[in-house]
């Protein structure tokens, strides 16, 4: 092998030598070795776990799932969804309840963090000094204070501004009232026949989508613009409203009941009447949303700045107004850059929701990996379940975002 072209004429090798020099066989060999090492490590870990469990007289298994759960849990979305009753519900119900509480926090948090984040990102690029300054300060402050501290801050702040447990204040005029024990609002109670209104809503949504597609086609072929927005609103509101009225308004609204007389303990909002949001949920929602929005803001700014200037100049030259330029020209291109890091912010928010344990919001880590673990003592099983749940949520989020990414991806014509 003195010259390079000799490589082409490698001498024929046979037997073992041939295998050693075959790059495919070589890589297979090393992958095999690695696999064996990993398997051996897993085997050792399992072996050790079994030994340690045996030493402590513990067994591995998930039979504890059917045991009744004897502990009261703070009333939240999950309680309502699962219908949790201490002593009757099982530990598996607690798992479902706590996952529901994690999910609702994540979903609501992601929704509002996205809106606020986009707003901040766009504001930060504004030419207006005040708007830009505000967004910059917001992002820098929020990003640089540890989240746990912010959670404690909101929890304490809500308690400070809220009226005492036997008073009531207005949170959203005409809709929500609040005090240190929580936020109270109306609760819809449905009656027979309400499902027809629900069906009407679904049909209306279908009709709106169909109309939107038709309008788009019309515009593409004839250039004629249709009043899509107005018509959509008309269908969405009109159809369900008509059905609702025809079926005899099968819905009543239950308003919270404020008691101001009688024994002290009974005063305040009556429990179980109207809808209720725990202050712990509110504190977490505010903390997770405002914190994550700062990161999303930066991602959006970077995404927008990644779109070449020429694009907005061209759009301007075509006479498109600023808002339309942002919506139709800049953002669709920026999305390509924004979505991957945005996905990881969504995953962060979901995982950060586990800090809820600090202020007593009953999510997965607080209740299942906390209270329940303490009662059944199955650390390995419970941690495994918690990991699987978070992994599943993360993978589903990623899958959804990938799907979304593919949809909004620039389709080059």
């Amino acid at each position: 092998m003195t010259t390079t072209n000799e490589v082409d004429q490698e001498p024929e090798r046979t037997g073992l030598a041939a295998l050693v020099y075959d790059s495919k066989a070589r890589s297979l060999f090393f992958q095999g070795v690695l696999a064996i090492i990993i398997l051996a490590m897993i085997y050792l870990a399992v072996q050790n776990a079994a030994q340690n469990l045996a030493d402590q007289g513990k067994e591995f298994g998930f039979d504890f799932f059917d045991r009744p759960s004897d502990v009261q849990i703070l009333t939240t979305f999950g309680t309502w969804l699962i219908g949790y009753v201490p002593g009757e519900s099982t530990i598996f119900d607690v798992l479902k309840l706590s996952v529901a509480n994690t999910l609702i926090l994540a979903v609501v948090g992601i929704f509002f963090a996205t809106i606020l984040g986009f707003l901040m990102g766009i504001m930060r690029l504004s030419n207006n000094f005040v708007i830009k300054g505000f967004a910059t300060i917001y992002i820098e402050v929020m990003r640089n204070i540890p989240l746990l501290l912010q959670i404690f801050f909101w929890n304490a702040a809500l308690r400070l501004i809220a009226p005492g447990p036997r008073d009531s204040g207005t949170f959203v005029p005409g809709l929500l009232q609040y005090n240190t024990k929580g936020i109270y609002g109306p609760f819809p109670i449905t009656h027979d026949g309400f499902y027809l209104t629900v069906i009407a809503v679904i049909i209306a949504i279908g009709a709106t989508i169909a109309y939107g597609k038709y309008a788009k086609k019309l515009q593409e072929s004839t250039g004629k613009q249709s009043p899509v927005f107005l018509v959509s609103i008309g269908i969405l509101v009109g159809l369900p409203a008509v059905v609702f009225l025809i079926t005899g308004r099968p819905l009543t609204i239950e308003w919270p009941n404020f008691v101001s007389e009688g024994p002290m303990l009974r005063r305040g909002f009556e429990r179980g009447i109207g809808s209720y949001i725990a202050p712990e949920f509110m504190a977490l929602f505010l903390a997770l949303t405002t914190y994550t929005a700062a990161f999303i803001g930066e991602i959006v700014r970077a995404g927008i700045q990644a779109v070449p200037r020429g694009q907005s100049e061209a759009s301007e030259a075509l006479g498109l107004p600023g808002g339309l330029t942002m919506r139709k020209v800049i953002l669709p291109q920026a999305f390509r850059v924004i979505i991957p890091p945005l996905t990881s912010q969504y995953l962060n928010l979901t995982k950060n929701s586990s800090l809820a344990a600090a202020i007593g919001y009953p999510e997965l880590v607080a209740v299942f990996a906390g209270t329940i673990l303490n009662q059944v003592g199955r650390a390995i099983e419970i941690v495994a379940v918690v990991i699987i749940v978070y992994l599943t949520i993360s993978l589903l989020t990623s899958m959804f975002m990938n799907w979304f990414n593919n949809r909004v991806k620039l389709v080059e014509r």
Partner: protein
Amino acid sequence: MKSTLLTIAAAATLTAGAAAASTLDDVKAAGKLKCGVSQGLPGFSNPDDSGKWTGLDVDMCRAVAAAVLGDAEAVEYVSLSAKDRFTALSSGEIDILSRNTTWTITRDTDLGISFAGVNYYDGQGMMVPANLGVSSATELDGATICTNTGTTTELNITDYFKQHGMTFELVALENSNEVVAAYGAGRCDVFTTDRSGLAAERLKLADPDAHVVLPETISKEPLGPSTRAGDEQWNKIVRWTLNALIEAEEYGITAANADEMMGSDNPSVKRILGAGDNDYGAALGLDKDWAAKAIKAVGNYGESYERNVGVNTPLKLDRGVNSLWNQGGFLYAAPIR
């Protein structure tokens, strides 16, 4: 967050690390005892202004350290929430858990730990702001209640309300200071925990006198130290150290007079102190004067009680049922003989 890490660490230690050797050997080799205590409960386990841990539960650790290592200061304190304490012990992060912990069958059999005795007989109580005008727990229907998560407390209160056909809302928090803050801010109408805990935690409230403890005691809470399951020798060391402190009170042995009592002609005293030919330490893997060292370090049970939680401390807890058996209490230590 810390607790999540701890839980994962616990699961990891359960999966990794070969089965531990004897705790006694480990403690001797390390030259210090790792003692799990609370996050700060005055009178039981609480760091003072200089960061030095004191309290009835802390004395338990100091006594064991003195008996095993001959040095009551050779203790490393690990502050644990109620929620984290059992995983910390079963995973080997600590050698002994001495943190106002109730002895129950589930904990003794399911959590990988073994109890070594009772150093404070307690029961669960409830505290309410005086201005609520509530005088009995049976009037608490509809109340919002704050307590620590990972405790017997949250289970007992659920039972109690169920049994009395009452409903309630439970705010369960990991850190006691958060519980006190939530209660103080009016998030809850009631603060429930062990009666001793109420006496200690109320000191943290803005105006301790504006709150009353209701008359009902809704549970039995025998509080005591525990060790990792599967190490009988170590469990016995802790158990007999506690017994020795209680017996010392019974026979009038104090930190001050222990040396002098070596010369006593009461055979029980001589056995406890390991005077003469008496050697009950060897079978435990300790020196013959193991109990004498423990008593000299923290005093007998009564001394430790009065110093930490007794009527002359801010907690003002009467000896009550925690008196010796021959003085109308429950303290009845198995004899050293």
